[in-house]
């Protein structure tokens, strides 16, 4: 197969909605024709992000409705309008935010994790235990996977790493019994308030194993049943999620392995088909790599527009606010210098592995690929880059165009590099400035969101916007939540009764 074609297709996938809708850029207004094309592009982008076909189709139909009725936004350009509507609708569908674990005060809480083989259940048990531990709870893990070789040992090692007790029995035990005994042991222990059940991976079509997990549910009535789902899952995600939900009435979903470049369309499909909220996401193998799920960020990711908000939030943690505002200002005005670049690199390095950070930026996914195919490790390069910038005079930093051959040689000598390295950095910096402009483009779109938010009575400041989202998560409309819980319990009780009657 020709290489040309291969790159073409790959780009088609990474470009996402941003690329798919680019034909709308610069067009004056929304017409019947460009709207049809836009809708088709939206549907295709969703399918390429692994959103299930029916979900993508229904979604597109809703967008069509809104695009027709969006009087308020008539003044905007079609591109911004489409992206804005799609983004907002994705957020609506994947929300509201729900990070609750339904912990009971003064009483033992039982959490159960379930899912397909290899989705990340055992690791996520460890991550949850760590999260709970850090919030002052006293978790215990129960090893109820009797299928996979060394699954028990795996959980034991994780427990040891965290200093969390693990209840386990011999590998040929009965899983239901192990769970019962585990909970009994936790009660007896007295110093445990949350039990996390690690169950075996199972296919939703495996009748025996599905019966087993229904038995665990029936016998232990966990307060939370969480489905662990791999973010790289394609069209089949809805089939398994639906089956697990039908069997167990799930309380939440945890989407794992989002640290890669998967678009994670499964998030939308699962929520749309089951209504079960996605509560957490896994972003790495280490036990601290669990984050609350944010629909707005996921929306950006599914659309292939970069995880803008996550980046902003991460950056906020590391940059001080003033410096941030200053740099943003410079960035927008195109006055971003090499010194700013160096400062930012330093701050960025504090945020985590560079390539991971870069991937969060719109349009940077491809740059990361480029770097990796050229066998460039940005971490190593950073040290060199810093050295080079340090060896420049302030004037050179402000205006790299000054740097001629003799200056280049001087800088290279000062930083222990080659003149070609200096040249490369300067070139890269100008590319980077190009990318900054792209970000400025993003900001336009953010501005649009802000205008809309203002109309809705929101705030202008993007930082404040994030804070508000967080607050509502933490507190939540309590009455509403209590009501939901009550309803859910009624449903669950009714279900249990039905299950009992069946036997």
């Amino acid at each position, binding site marked *: 197969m020709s290489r040309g074609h291969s790159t073409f297709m*790959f780009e088609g996938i990474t470009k996402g909605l941003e690329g798919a809708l680019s034909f709308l850029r610069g067009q004056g207004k929304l017409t019947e024709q460009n709207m049809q094309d836009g809708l088709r592009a939206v549907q295709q982008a969703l399918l390429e*992000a692994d959103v299930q076909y029916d979900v993508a189709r229904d979604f597109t139909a809703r967008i069509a409705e809104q695009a027709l009725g969006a009087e308020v936004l008539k003044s905007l350009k079609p591109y911004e309008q489409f992206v804005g509507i799609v983004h907002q609708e994705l957020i609506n569908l994947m929300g509201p935010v729900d990070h609750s674990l339904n912990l009971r005060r003064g009483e033992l809480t039982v959490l159960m994790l379930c899912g*397909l083989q290899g989705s990340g259940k055992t690791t996520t048990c460890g991550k949850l235990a760590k999260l709970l531990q850090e919030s002052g709870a006293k978790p215990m893990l129960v090893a109820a996977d009797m299928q996979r070789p*060394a699954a028990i040992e795996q959980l034991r090692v994780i427990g040891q790493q965290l200093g969390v007790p693990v209840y386990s029995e011999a590998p040929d035990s009965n899983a239901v019994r192990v769970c019962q005994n585990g909970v009994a042991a936790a009660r007896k222990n007295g110093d445990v308030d949350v039990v996390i059940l690690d169950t075996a991976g199972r296919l939703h079509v495996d009748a025996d194993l599905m019966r087993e997990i229904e038995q665990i549910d029936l016998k232990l009535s966990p307060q939370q049943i969480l489905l662990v789902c791999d973010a790289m899952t394609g069209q089949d995600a809805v089939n398994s999620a639906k089956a697990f939900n039908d069997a167990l009435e799930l309380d939440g979903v945890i989407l794992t392995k989002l640290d890669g470049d998967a678009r994670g369309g499964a998030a939308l499909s699962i929520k749309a088909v089951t209504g079960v909220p996605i509560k957490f996401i896994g972003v790495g193998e280490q036990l601290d790599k669990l984050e609350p799920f944010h629909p707005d960020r996921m929306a950006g990711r599914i659309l292939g527009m970069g995880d803008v908000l996550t980046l902003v939030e991460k950056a906020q943690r590391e940059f001080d606010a003033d410096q941030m505002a200053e740099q943003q200002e410079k960035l927008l005005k195109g006055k971003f210098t090499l010194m700013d670049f160096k400062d930012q690199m330093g701050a960025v390095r504090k945020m985590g592995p560079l390539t991971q950070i870069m991937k969060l930026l719109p349009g940077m996914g491809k740059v990361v690929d480029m770097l990796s195919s050229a066998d460039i490790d940005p971490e190593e390069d950073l040290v060199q880059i810093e050295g080079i910038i340090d060896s420049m005079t302030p004037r050179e930093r402000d205006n790299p165009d000054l740097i001629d051959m003799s200056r280049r040689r001087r800088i290279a000598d000062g930083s222990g590099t080659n003149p070609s390295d200096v040249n490369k950095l300067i070139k890269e910096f100008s590319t980077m400035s190009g990318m900054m402009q792209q970000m400025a483009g993003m900001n336009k779109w953010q501005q649009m969101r802000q205008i809309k938010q203002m109309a809705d009575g929101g705030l202008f400041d993007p930082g404040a916007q994030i804070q508000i989202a967080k607050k509502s998560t933490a507190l939540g409309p309590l009455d509403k939540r209590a009501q939901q819980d009550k309803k859910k319990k009624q449903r669950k009780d009714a279900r249990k009764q039905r299950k009992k009657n069946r036997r």
Partner: protein
Amino acid sequence: MGLFDKLKRGLQKTKDLLQTDLRDLLKSGEILTEPKLEQFYSRLIATDMGVASAKAIIEELREKHVGRTVVFEEVWDTVRAKLKALLKGDSGTLWDASQPLSPLRFAPEGVTVILVAGVNGVGKTTSIAKLANLLKKNGKKVVLAAGDTFRAAAVEQLTLWSQRLGVEIVTKPSGSDPASVAYAGCARALETNADVVIVDTAGRIQTQQNLMKQLSKIQRVIADKVPGAPHEVLLVLDATTGQNGISQAQHFSQTVSCTGLVLAKLDGTAKGGIVLAIRKEMNLPVKYVGVGEQIDDLELFDPDEFVNALFDQ
């Protein structure tokens, strides 16, 4: 249940289905309309083959059959021919179905090294155990190298399999350099005159550069110890994987030049259609499929069966 029972049962199910489900959609005697094509498109998308492949097939149907009276067999032939052409790639040749080891490239003499890689949790270790079983059954002496020194109890997992199979395993403590395990595995195989050494690796997300570098180091070390090795670099893919499978295949191939795919977990309801796109883009063939958690649940990839099963509901 034996391998062949499973196969037969699968085929039986597929045949029944082709009688009903797809026939309903593409009913003989009716005119093939655009809405019907759209419906068929949704079935193609449901396999995870991706928009590009699905569109290519629809395009072909549109050209050949739209507006005409459907003869089911003809339409189905068009689809099947197109899919099979995709799966067989440029070379058009596949292996001998009666020879379960025929997809593997063995060293002309001495030790054959098989390196197994893939993202986290796809089924690498289990597939290795299954492959070792297959090799052993076919008279090969196998050594396993427990190269996943990262994930908790990964070494124990492969060790348990090696004990069940009665094959030798080389391990190092958790946290050791995986390349040194690979090296030791090759050394052990040379020492004991083994036929095949299979090297397990930790799961890694294809965009994690450091881990991908580690993988190429493993490959380099293998090549240093055994000239011409690794003879096979198998990428394990989870059948539930969606469009990210392309990125996986691209990145892993770039790093360690994969020679084929093992499509694991095909016993669920996922179709694994992404391998069509991967074959098309990178000419990387599927060699084996995993159809369960047990040691015998590995089958030689059969394009006919696979194509039929794509439309199984």
